[in-house]
């Protein structure tokens, strides 16, 4: 269990005007925030390495068992990662990086075969139907010829540079997910993607062609995920850039980051883009984790992550707990009623997320919940949206309570990556 360091508490406390003995200093709160980030990304890295090992095992010995183990490892890897999403908004270094690991939607057809039956006659001459990396050692994309004879991490990274904006639609968690589950062809009916393990089988047992290349893509994507997570974990370690940035100055920028992250994820991103939009459009696959039908967990862990940073408490995958002085402590010292209110609302949104998890365990997944005509299912999702919107109002009041201003909750900045644009 980590104990947050006390860094000049008295001086900072008087700057912020909080009670000297009733509240932690800003730096203490921010140290806990950085510690939880580090632990969360480290857990994501640990589980990603387990996924990497499971992928290696699948490729070495393709079978229903190794295939199932790889899928389980992927599902397990999502739980810690989703809890880190709250760090994405408010920490530019995370926002600029996250497109590599969590971008969605996916250019499915660029990666592997897709279901073309619904789209009219297949034309052998029309290369658009078969222009995917797994099946083609050479690809022409936007006039540029890509040598895809060897599929490795370097090739996957170069695919990002083809299009104008970052086209991280070919790597990350969801690319791996697609390669393990395949497209979910059930629409709003029950069932996830139903890819067979034989898509990785050797020799004649190989289904849908190019099993060796498919395995190579899966492996490359897994390797990239691990190296990307290694990088971000280091940024939150002692001396890392993300930690240093958050601890800079008088603590106001850091506190701003916490509140911005909580509010932006609650409101625009999770409440809005990832949940409300799907509900509004009734698009069955307007959902992260659409191939594996794991969206309920993704959303639940997202909500949990918001609560974690407010309470200053995170339970690691090994069961140990990281905790320390928290934003809740800071708010409680200034406005006890607000703190109580927000704690209640955070608990409510986590519970609403849990309700979706329970439904899924009972067989009704997110894409079914948002289906047109499923009023009861829609209501479960709407409850989640409402809870997130409601807690945003309280989060906004933190700004005044703690004395930081100039905050605004933004939507996704994921396309602002300056290094990706020419």
């Amino acid at each position, binding site marked *: 269990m980590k104990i947050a360091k006390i860094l000049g508490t008295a001086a900072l406390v008087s700057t912020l005007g909080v009670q000297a003995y009733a509240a932690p200093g800003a730096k203490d709160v921010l140290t806990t925030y950085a510690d939880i980030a580090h632990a969360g990304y480290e857990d994501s890295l640990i589980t990603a390495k387990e996924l990497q090992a499971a992928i290696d095992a699948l490729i070495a010995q393709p079978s229903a068992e190794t295939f199932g183990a790889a899928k389980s490892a992927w599902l397990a890897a999502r739980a810690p990662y989703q809890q880190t999403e709250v760090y994405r908004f408010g920490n530019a270094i995370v926002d600029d990086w996250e497109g590599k690991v969590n971008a969605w939607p996916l250019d499915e057809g660029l990666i592997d075969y897709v279901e073309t039956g619904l789209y009219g006659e297949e034309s052998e001459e029309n290369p658009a139907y078969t222009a995917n990396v797994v099946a083609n050692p050479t690809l022409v994309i*936007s006039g540029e010829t890509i040598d895809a004879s060897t599929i490795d991490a370097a090739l996957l990274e170069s695919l990002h540079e083809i299009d104008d904006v970052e086209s991280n639609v070919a790597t990350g968690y969801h690319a791996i997910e697609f390669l393990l589950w395949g497209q979910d062809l059930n629409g709003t009916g029950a069932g996830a993607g139903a890819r067979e393990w034989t898509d990785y089988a050797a020799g004649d047992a190989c289904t849908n062609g190019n099993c060796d290349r498919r395995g190579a893509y899966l492996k490359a994507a897994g390797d990239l995920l691990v190296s990307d997570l290694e990088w971000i974990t280091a940024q939150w370690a002692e001396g890392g850039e993300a930690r240093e940035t958050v601890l800079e100055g008088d603590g106001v920028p850091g506190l701003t980051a916490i509140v911005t992250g909580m509010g932006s994820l609650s409101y625009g991103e999770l409440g809005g883009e990832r949940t409300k939009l799907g509900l509004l459009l009734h698009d069955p696959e307007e959902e992260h984790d659409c191939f594996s039908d794991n969206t309920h967990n993704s959303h639940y862990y997202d909500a949990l992550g918001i609560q974690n940073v407010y309470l200053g408490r995170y339970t690691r995958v090994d069961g140990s707990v990281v905790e320390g002085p928290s934003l809740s402590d800071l708010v409680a010292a200034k406005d006890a009623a607000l703190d109580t209110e927000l704690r209640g609302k955070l608990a409510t949104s986590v519970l609403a997320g849990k309700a979706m998890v329970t439904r899924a365990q009972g067989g009704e997944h997110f894409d079914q919940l948002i289906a047109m005509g499923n009023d009861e299912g829609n209501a479960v999702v709407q409850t989640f949206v409402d809870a997130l919107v409601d807690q945003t109002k309280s989060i906004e009041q933190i700004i005044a309570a703690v004395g930081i201003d100039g905050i605004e909750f933004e939507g996704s900045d994921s396309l602002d990556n300056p290094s990706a644009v020419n």
Partner: protein
Amino acid sequence: MKRPAFALRYILSSGLVLTSLMAPLIPGRADDLSASALPGGDATWPNADGRNVFTHYSANMTFEKRLDFKLGEALFQRLWVTAPTRTKTADGLGPLFNSRACSGCHIRNGRGHPVDENAPGDGATSMLLRLSIPPQTADQLRDHLDGKIATIPDPVYGGQFQDFSIPGIKAEGRVKVTYQTQDVSLAGGEVVTLQKPDYQMTELAYGPLHPDVMVSPRLAPPMIGLGLLEAIPDDVLLAAADPQDRDGDGISGRVNHVWDIASGKLAIGRFGWKAGMPTLDQQNQNAFQFDIGLSTPLYPNGSGDCTETQKNCLTAPDGNDPEFENLEAHSQVTDLVLYYTRNIAPPARPNAHDADVIAGQQIFTSIGCASCHTPRYQLPQRPDMAEQSGQVIWPYSDLLLHDMGEGLADHRPEAQASGREWRTPPLWGIGRAKQIDPRAQFLHDGRARTILEAVLWHGGEAEAARNSVTLLPPSERRKLLAFLKSL
């Protein structure tokens, strides 16, 4: 708006400048200085700064509506993917496109940048080339003169050049630029180098372009205040138009009449470099169709700008879904994007009260810039557009077409706009351009690297005002620029 009397101009150009802080910017309105610091009225975002200065919602938006703004923003930033995918409302990209996402060209909602002369391989990532040919048949000529068709597309390459494509389909080619320079001497000794671009399309993938093809390079314009501009009534624009220059001030702004698809008739154009689009909705949907290749309610073609010659393009799978109006970006999507694009807030002006800025604004008016760059409008009550309703706004544009001279001409008519005419672009936010993206440049083809260069390119109806700028003593010119940069 009339230019001031000769005597006043004489005084100004000889260095004596009126610097009274309380001088109204428009005669009769003493409170204007404070109001002009909030260019969007109550919709203005206060304390906006940094590279995200153009990403805020109308400040007078209710909490409930903010979620709709966020949903529209999510769609504006969405990376569209190649059909078919199971994400049915997200696929249908291209097959030919200029950008995979709206925000790909409209980077952080700021203005675009031209092709990098030294890195042409990077592509035209924040601008595009529009293409057209003169009417070839009597029918085309009649429809063009009637206003039903704004431009006739190139028979092979369509209405614009797309240098990106989905896998398996050839992109139309590459865009390259070269520049020729010319020097302009200003009073006081400063010499400014202007550059004139020559855009070329190379590695053409579908054969030659039409011999009479007309090409117009078009930078992505900034996205702030569009709902506010939309709320300016037609008759206000018409009242300012003076095509025959009856008042003899040398300015002959006129409206463009363009086809409004939704209403099925001609309407006044106000969006786009030549005011070619009558409504923000049609502007957005046109961009979805031609820049990203998505079908929309007003543009239901699933294959975007593909022509008969581009056969693989036409037969590639599209993302039209019967469940979603048989479109790739159906009305729920376009409605949310419309609400978003209407409500991107102009930022407040922190330097509006600086002495130099105020002095610069006096010069701006006295030289005659405000004749086309109309500073202020009072919007009417609009129950259907709550955030824009009744606001006093400061866009600095009459939204009219003006002949800007031979130097800036693209020689490509668009609806009723001639090859020498351009719509007065709004100046609000112009001082923020490089803050948002250091590569941002000015004018339709991005030729001007600085605001001063942009001013020096003004010709035609603006030539007299432009010449006044070159004659200003350096200290006065500096104040004028301080004013422009404060916007």
